[in-house]
């Protein structure tokens, strides 16, 4: 690192100092709120409000976490979100790949029509109420299907995969054809193994998208036992609600407010940890998706 800097004109040093200074500030600004919440989740809420975070680990306790994990709302929400996200991501990959492959085949004469029919929907949508009425008429209100099924057909993902498949040398399919392979055989035996990177991209994006969304669940799912984690979090973080099971033991209003406050920190940590742990390992796939997305976008 220093060798490179030695090559630079010495007049640049002040500029480099400013740049590194700014970057350090940016990194701290990015991490500090997360760090604050993390440390706060181990602290006594009164202490936290009075003096801010305290780095003395001996004063920390796991009290918030034991409250969180004894709260059935959060545990059920976490489980629901896992199931919904996993199902959604898996089905998304299947639907997207199956749909994208035929669109790369010249023999498919209706390719153009299908393409138009699909692109149009990126710009024209029915909007909130028509979609809501459809879901209601399909009898999917209050069912996880309402948040999983409608989003499975994602034009954006299809374009992404189609572009990827087009980038695979055509000779491969030619030789497969000469060997007598049908579309199915070529798709499953030859193409799929080559598509692993793009499958990872679609899977991860769909998973994170489902994990982090709350809107569809808010309008379609009333039953608390079916709600995803984000809705539970919304009640705790935004609406300052204390889960029903805990009200009995806490009487005074200010105690309730404190409990509501305390639960916030630990619930943020618990709900964002799966993604924050997963993300560094898959960073290259996420980046790839972002790249293709913005260039084509």
């Amino acid at each position, binding site marked *: *690192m220093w060798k490179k800097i030695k090559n630079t004109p010495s007049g640049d040093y002040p500029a*480099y100092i400013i740049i590194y200074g700014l970057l350090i500030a940016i990194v701290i600004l990015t991490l500090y709120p997360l760090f604050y919440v993390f440390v706060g989740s181990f602290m006594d809420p009164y202490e936290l409000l009075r003096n801010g975070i305290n780095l003395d680990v001996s004063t920390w306790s796991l009290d918030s976490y034991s409250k969180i994990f004894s709260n059935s709302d959060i545990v059920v929400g976490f489980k629901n979100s896992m199931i919904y996200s996993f199902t959604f991501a898996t089905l998304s990959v299947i639907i997207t790949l199956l749909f994208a492959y035929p669109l790369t*085949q010249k023999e498919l004469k209706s390719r153009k029509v299908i393409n138009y029919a699909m692109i149009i929907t990126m710009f024209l949508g029915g909007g909130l109420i028509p979609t809501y009425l459809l879901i209601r008429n399909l009898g999917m209100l209050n069912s996880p299907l309402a948040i999983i099924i409608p989003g499975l057909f994602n034009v954006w993902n299809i374009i992404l995969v189609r572009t990827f498949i087009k980038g695979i040398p055509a000779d491969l399919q030619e030789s497969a054809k000469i060997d007598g392979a049908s*579309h199915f055989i070529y798709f499953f035996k030859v193409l799929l193994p080559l598509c692993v990177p793009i499958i990872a991209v679609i899977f991860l994006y769909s998973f994170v998208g489902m994990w982090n969304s709350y809107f569809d669940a808010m309008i379609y799912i009333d039953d608390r036992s079916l709600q995803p984690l984000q809705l539970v979090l919304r009640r705790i973080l935004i609406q300052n609600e204390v889960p029903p099971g805990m009200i009995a033991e806490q009487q005074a209003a200010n105690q309730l407010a404190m409990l509501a406050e305390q639960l916030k920190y630990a619930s943020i940590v618990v709900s964002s940890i799966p993604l924050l742990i997963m993300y560094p390992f898959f960073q290259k796939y996420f980046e790839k998706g*972002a790249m293709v997305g913005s260039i084509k976008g």
Partner: protein
Amino acid sequence: MKRFLKEVVINNRINQFSKNFRENYQLYIMLLPGLILLFVFKYIPLYGITLAFKEYNPMLGILGSPWVGLKYFQQFFESPDFWQLMQNTIILSAMALVAGFIAPIILALLINQVRSVGLKKNIQLIVYAPNFISVVIVVGMLFIFLSPVGPVNSLITSKGFKEIPFMTSAEYFRDVYVWSGVWQVTGWGSIIYLAALSNVNEELIEAAKLDGASLLQRIRYIELPTIKPIAVILLILSAGSLMSIGFEKVYLMQTSLNMATSEILPTYIYKQGLLMNNYSYSTAIGLFNSAINLVLLIGVNMVVKKLNEGEGL
């Protein structure tokens, strides 16, 4: 004779098509699940747009409800909320657009100056991370940090200033919305620029150094021109989405005290529609909003086509 020929041609076409279908039936099988989803969830709701021109009656359904023409559009344009809503939507959107455009460019230029590959990778890992935090959590954190007793206000009051009602006043809503957005997505937005910057020819930079070009000059004359084409396209594209600002974060940030600036078209559509059951009115406003989006998008696409030598989106 002519008729006969015509029939032959048509028969031929049908034969060709059925031959094509027989040879490629597997392709159609693969398309089938997607086609069903496309039809049911993208096209059937399109039909529901007619609600905007009808007086919805739950007993009669969409089909049977009577037509009322432009009644609901008129109701919206004449409603006292109209200008306030338009103004709130456009200002918030424009502020987010400008900040969301400039911040990633600055960040990318800063990160690109880091010479050590390992350090660069770590900085990227950190600044990308907030992008993966859900909007519920981000807004939840805003309420924690910016509450009257939260850490930001205790810092402010400890310095002798007056406490600032960030989340409970119309005055601060837009700033909180935009700056928290900058915190969350700037890192992610810089990816595309960093990729473009990685294509800058190293020799060009070395040569510039030998000629005594300062760091600022190198940024100005080598790096900025490199990212300019992408920046222009991204800016034009975001102009196309000026009126399609997202619902999710604004709705969570709304409190009864900041409505004067935080009520935007999408939140109003939601409340009118699903909370107050004015289905037709809500659909009409939604249609109005998407019509503006569509016009903006077509306009933007024309501009891009011009710049991009005939290649649209």
